[in-house]
């Protein structure tokens, strides 16, 4: 067993787990944070995306021990009690998610993108979502939502609609 302490959504949490435990299982099974999903378990689908030290990662491909002492942000850490994260609000308003299973991962990828690049082009957004599979939506409404949030941040005037 290894003892792992991670700073999850701003709160230090500790658990003792077998060394082969992935960060995903640590979050889901030890900390009851079931927002990150197990979709493929090999890094293809992105449903398990969380941010570690500010970078998005496949939590199914990281050992819990490798996250020891690091900052982990999950979907549960995006909203506060008072207010949704602007991305969550935009996704809700545009109906960007359908079955919703890919949603937490997509939102974390979008958040990681906007943190690094507040003014992404459509191509930047597509590139940022390349590691997140969605089988329902066709991505368009997600891309619109992310563009909308980027613009609302005052990054640039709205481009002419296509």
């Amino acid at each position, binding site marked *: 067993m290894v003892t792992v302490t991670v700073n999850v959504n701003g709160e230090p949490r500790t658990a003792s787990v077998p060394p082969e435990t992935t960060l995903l299982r640590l979050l889901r099974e030890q900390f009851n944070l079931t927002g990150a999903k197990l979709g493929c378990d090999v890094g293809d689908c992105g449903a398990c995306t969380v941010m570690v030290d500010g970078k998005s990662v496949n939590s199914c491909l990281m050992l819990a021990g490798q996250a020891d002492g690091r900052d982990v942000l999950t979907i549960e850490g995006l909203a506060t009690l008072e207010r949704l994260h602007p991305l969550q609000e935009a996704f809700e308003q545009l109906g960007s998610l359908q079955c919703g299973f890919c949603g937490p991962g997509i939102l974390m990828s979008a958040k990681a993108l906007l943190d690094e690049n507040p003014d992404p082009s459509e191509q930047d957004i597509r590139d940022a979502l390349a*590691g997140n599979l969605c089988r329902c939506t066709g991505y368009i409404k997600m891309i619109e939502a992310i563009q909308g949030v980027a613009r609302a941040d005052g990054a640039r005037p709205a481009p002419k609609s296509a």
Partner: protein
Amino acid sequence: MKAFEVVAARDARHAVALLAEHTPTAKVKVIAGGTDLLADLKFASASHAPDVVVDISRAEDLRTIAVTGGGLSIGALVTHTEIMASPAIREMFPALVDAAHTIGAVQTRNLGTLGGNLVTAVPSVDSGPTLVALDAQVTVLGPGGERRMPLAEFFVGPRRTALKPDELLVEILIPTENLGKPACFLKFGLRKGQALALVNVAASFWVDAKTQTFRAPRVALGAVAPKVIHATSAEAYLEGRAIAPEAMAEAGRLAVGDAKPISDFRASAEYRKHLIAVLTRRALEGAYDVWQKKQSPAGRAR
């Protein structure tokens, strides 16, 4: 995933010591970013799994990018994202940035390391062709000290390298004489995002400014042989030849003969041959573009 023990290394030397300690008695594996290793182990049978995993993800000394006396040195633990962000690499080798950009997706590139990519050594390894085309060397650290070899020889076959079980890949070095050598990397997958290469190609050459001829041309091909290969007949053909579209197209045709592509569920050998010719020509054109941009005052100013 089967149970295993994890031992964490502080730095490269510590990692080698841990390997020396455990390899005689146990099945040992190194983990860096884990994007290949864990994906492999998830559905592997118990007999295939390691007993001990040496975690090098915190060995900071393996994470540097620096121009040294020997050339451009990239630590084995540098991630694909870090390669894309490195000012030195962006300036000298945009082809390496392009190659890193084609690997997986953001999440995989944030975790996956250059060392892990090369050690996994699949024939389609996307960091391979550009580095081979730039005559990169690798440094390997073992109980007996360091040894160095060309990357082209480090690759031995599909998923096989010259690395011994108790050795660590520590550094990838692009020699001084090749710093800034114009290069271009192209990958053709079934999709733009997150797809393995059907064929990947890198081309690199110096331009003899006076005669406008190819000097030290290199063409490296991936996914069309058991390992990344030099297209030797294309290279020999181009050496000293005048730079012209027809020469690039002919080099593409010759490169087809240097490869031994297979047919699999992703593509037929015939289709791969077609891709080799087209991509080789385009990669040569791309490398020439890089050279021309460097000549123009605007290009230099950037």
